[in-house]
């Protein structure tokens, strides 16, 4: 795993993927996608599409968080 971009990608994408998968499972096991509202309208997508979009939305959020953490940790003074 060479340094630089690939390393950052692995560090950020993988943990956020696992957390997104966990969040997806918890969220959709308690909430029925067909009872969701989007901008005041009932969600019109098929359930599989809602699950999929939900997963990528979770991954986006957790990925952003991981990216920030990676960036902040990079700037930490050496111990």
């Amino acid at each position, binding site marked *: *795993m*060479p*340094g630089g971009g690939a*390393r950052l990608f*692995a560090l950020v994408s*993988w*943990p956020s993927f*696992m957390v997104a998968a966990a969040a997806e499972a918890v969220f959709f*096991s*308690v909430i*029925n996608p067909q009872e969701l509202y989007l901008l005041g309208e009932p969600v019109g997508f*098929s*359930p*599989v*599409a809602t*699950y*999929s979009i939900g997963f990528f939305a979770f991954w986006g959020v957790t990925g952003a968080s991981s990216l920030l953490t990676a960036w902040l940790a990079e700037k930490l003074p050496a111990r």
Partner: protein
Amino acid sequence: MSSNASPGNTPPVAAAPKRARVIPIAEVVSDDGELYAARKKIQPRSIKGRFNNVRWAMVWITQLVFYGLAWLPWNGRQAVLFDLLERKFYIFGLVLWPQDVVFLSLLLIISALGLFLVTAVAGRVWCGYACPQSVYTEMFMWIERRIEGDRSARMKLDAAPMSLRKFSLRTAKHGAWATLALWTGFTFVGYFTPIREVAAEVLTWSAGSWEIFWMLFYAAFTYVFAGHMREQVCKYMCPYARFQGVMFDPDSLIVSYDATRGEPRGSRRKGQEGKAIGDCVDCEWCVQVCPTGIDIRKGLQYECIGCALCIDACDQVMDKLGRPRGLIAYSTERAQLAGKPAHESWREVVAHIVRPRVILYTSLLAFIVSGFAWALLTRTPVKMNIMRDRASLAREVEGGKIENVYQLRIMNTSEAPRRFLLEIEGLPGAAIEGQREIEVEAAGSRDIPMRVQVDAESLTPGSHVIYFNLQAVDAPDVRVHEKASFMQPR
């Protein structure tokens, strides 16, 4: 990977240590101080032996289950199906609804505790034998070996310039990998959408775009993880590999090298017969077979996934030399410190296993498993949700009566259709208007509006408690009792 683990570059070991060296699990930091050093491609040598047989048995068992279970029918449906559209999980005779999410979380807790227990007793056997990352890597390596040859042939091929032969070998390998990966992706999707329907859709090019997407996504995942990343997943990405140190103790099983017996290592040359020399002939087989490319003779390292292939390799070499097996063996840190690293008696093995941590994990596990089983066995196979009709709270109807309308959702979680009888209680004079007997299909649900009427004069204004009793016609113990409220507006 650090350069000092590469074959043929083993640093000389100092004088034979008095006691076996025990090195705690630690990250081997490479020379440039970077954790993510440029990777050297690992081309492991294939090896036959006891532990390799166990590994392959596990590949067969886990993959027959994974690829095969999706096709198994059960009561006219797929035996194991996590139906996302219907929001129902079918596991053989068990049908789980969203209301049963507690069972799924219990299952996860049981799995996690089981992993703790196994790790405390036997170290990283999960990693070495059962983890999908190890299993798929083995399958992909098998394909690679069949097409490109064993270690030396592959290393030669890697070094060779592109030629027609190299190109065709590479094409064949990636083609076979892609086929296996696509089949894996298809099977994965087949656990969430009925696999026979998906198969028919794929064959007629009519599969939904999201299904295709997830098939390709999972296939790409498999291809990249098992074909290309392999041991790097364990080394850099796996959280379990990082926190296993917490679950380990000096009595956990580890793959270890008996340095007392092996050192000083070296090949046996003529004229040196009288010299004190250890059993390790420094043949490097243990390094060459290692799928993570480490040298087990340096002690326990966090990269070691406990696959025990180095044991198989060393046993073969010891057999050839006419020396006893077990120079590399499953052992424990405590046994190593006591200077008796391998071939312990059963009594000693039991003494290693029975210890407070293991007893604690086992009793916790037994407690949760029995609770789980009890909850599952005593579960009532019917559920009822009562929602008040949002449009009309209450209204006056003919005959001076007040009517409330409810939406009932009745879920039959058993595998046969059932008839239910609905009754109300708790509110004197209240009566159900309309149908009281309801039939619900097997593992299905039914929404029905339910009107309840009460004499207006007999009720004080406000909210009153009312109970709905749903009773299966064929089984007296299959019943639910739900509370709701009845509104009297005046």
